């Protein structure tokens, strides 16, 4: 249950940063923390204390960790990285236009 607790704490932390903070970069960080919480949770569940799930010649592997969640997580990390990059470029552009990265001060974002 320890991993559940950490998942909830991390997820809520990220969600807090995403919703409550007005700094756009902090919002991106919050989003990434949220994603990281989900990935951590997935990986911690798939770990059953077994072998790495690689097929070894001549060896009988009886207990191995499920590779599918790991594959899902890898893909999720790739998506997360690309969206973070895209968001940060948009924030840089926005900073060029309005001279600030504060959500409250950028006109029209909160209307």
């Amino acid at each position, binding site marked *: 249950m320890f991993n559940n607790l950490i998942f909830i704490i991390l997820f809520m932390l990220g969600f807090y940063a995403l919703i409550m903070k007005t700094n756009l970069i902090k919002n991106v960080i919050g*989003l990434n923390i*949220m994603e990281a919480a989900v990935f951590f949770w997935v990986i911690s569940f798939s770990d059953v204390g077994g072998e790495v799930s690689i097929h070894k010649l001549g060896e009988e592997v009886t207990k191995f960790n499920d590779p599918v*969640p790991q594959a899902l997580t890898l893909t999720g990390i790739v998506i997360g990285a690309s*969206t973070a990059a895209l968001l940060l470029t*948009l924030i840089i*552009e*926005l900073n060029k236009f309005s001279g600030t990265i504060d959500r409250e001060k950028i006109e029209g974002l909160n209307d």
Partner: protein
Amino acid sequence: MSWMNIELILLIALPAVIAVFMAFSSSFKQRTRNILAVTGAGIELYLVFSLFFLNFEAVKNSNFFLQYTIGYSNPPFVINFAMDNLSLLFSLIVTAAVFFIVIFSTQYIRDKESRYFAFFFLVLASIQGSILTADLFTLYLFIEAITIFTTPLISFKKTEKTTRAAMQYLFYGITGGVFFFISIILIYFNLGTLKMAAVAESFVLISTPMQLTIIIFFLLALIIKLGIFPIHFWLPRAHSACPAPISALLSGVLLKVYLYIFMRLFWTMIAFDFLVELHLSAFVLDLALVSSLIGHVFALQADKLKKMLAYSSIGHIGMILAVLMLNTEAAFYGGLLHIIAHMLMKSGLFLSSGYLLRTTLSHHIDDLKGIGHKNRLVFIAFIIICLGTIGMPPLIGFVSKWFVLLAFLEARHYFGAFVVGAGSIIALIYYLRYISQAYETVKTENKTLREELVSLKVFFKSTNIMKNIIYLFTLLIIFFGLGYKFFEIPINTAIFELLNPQKYIELVLGG
């Protein structure tokens, strides 16, 4: 493995390959690039239509099914694409709409075309992928791909407004994606599979609280992506900031793709009875109806043309979602017909607004004075499409709204019937506001109506592709309004698919 099964992969791979060509096409001549884009979209359209006509007998008897598997044959280590009648219907209408939007944008987009078309075809590839996929993880990938690839298109004209809209769109899209991911992972941990058909078979085995969690996360993700009421404010901004063809793509095509995913998830994968049992269907129905009303009311106060159209989209999508939640045959007929009708009408409206707004300062209502006199025929087409959206009798909007209304009355859901009627009346008011504004001043001396009609005679010879596409959409709306029976066979077979998910499950697991 016959040619047709490989066509499924080709439908996804072809736009992706064209996108790669487009990305490096900045040194091409403009003509070459346009020809490449139009032929690419045309081949895509031909492939889908050939699938439809070559298998017409099978489609008619509701046993059309194609699938293609990549990887090992045993689940869950497999990527699976399948096409049944429902996905065929959506693939058909989406590809047809996208084809016309591509033709429109060859003339509309005037700079950075290579970038534009590259992202456009990537979006097309991910749309086809999310329609054709048969397992959850690929679905998640393609949904995220749609979100990521549409963002640069929204901020295509680099201004402060578009950047803001794109950023907000991405924030909400990714949050929805995270919810979707959580749901998928919960399904995997409970059932050990990600194939939609296998999940559908054993979804009963999950404990009720877990079922509730999974369904709620799916609903949250899709409500965010569809722009249903509590989380709708990103939609009008994103849909009004981008260039007109992209607005048409987002509002006319993409929202329908999310509706398709909604149907796939809640009718094929998770049987609809679970939603009824957990008392969620009534809740979603009411939420969608409230969203519909709110969309229409907000459209009343929107002072910008494209923003008004986007709010009206919220209204229509809410109505379609509500009618689908009734889960009767009549409701599916009305809902699917309105999906097609709204796709035609909203694409037409956004494209014609794009044409009309080229000559004005902004799309604020005060700047639109006299556009009705400047471009007479295009504005008449715009009015006809508006009337279709309101629900005037000979047009397709009337037919579909009529069936939606009948479905609500048949289910004795009078609030729904009220929302459909009220939506039409409010729509009449907000469209009239813009139409009367457009005919305000009569100062500009331009072509007379007679000259315009003469120019219509050289319809396909004339160089103005944009106008012709708008006229084509108008004609289609009139034509299908009179001949909505054309959609009878595809829609009825799609309804069969929704009501009998067992067939899809058996065929996917069997092959």
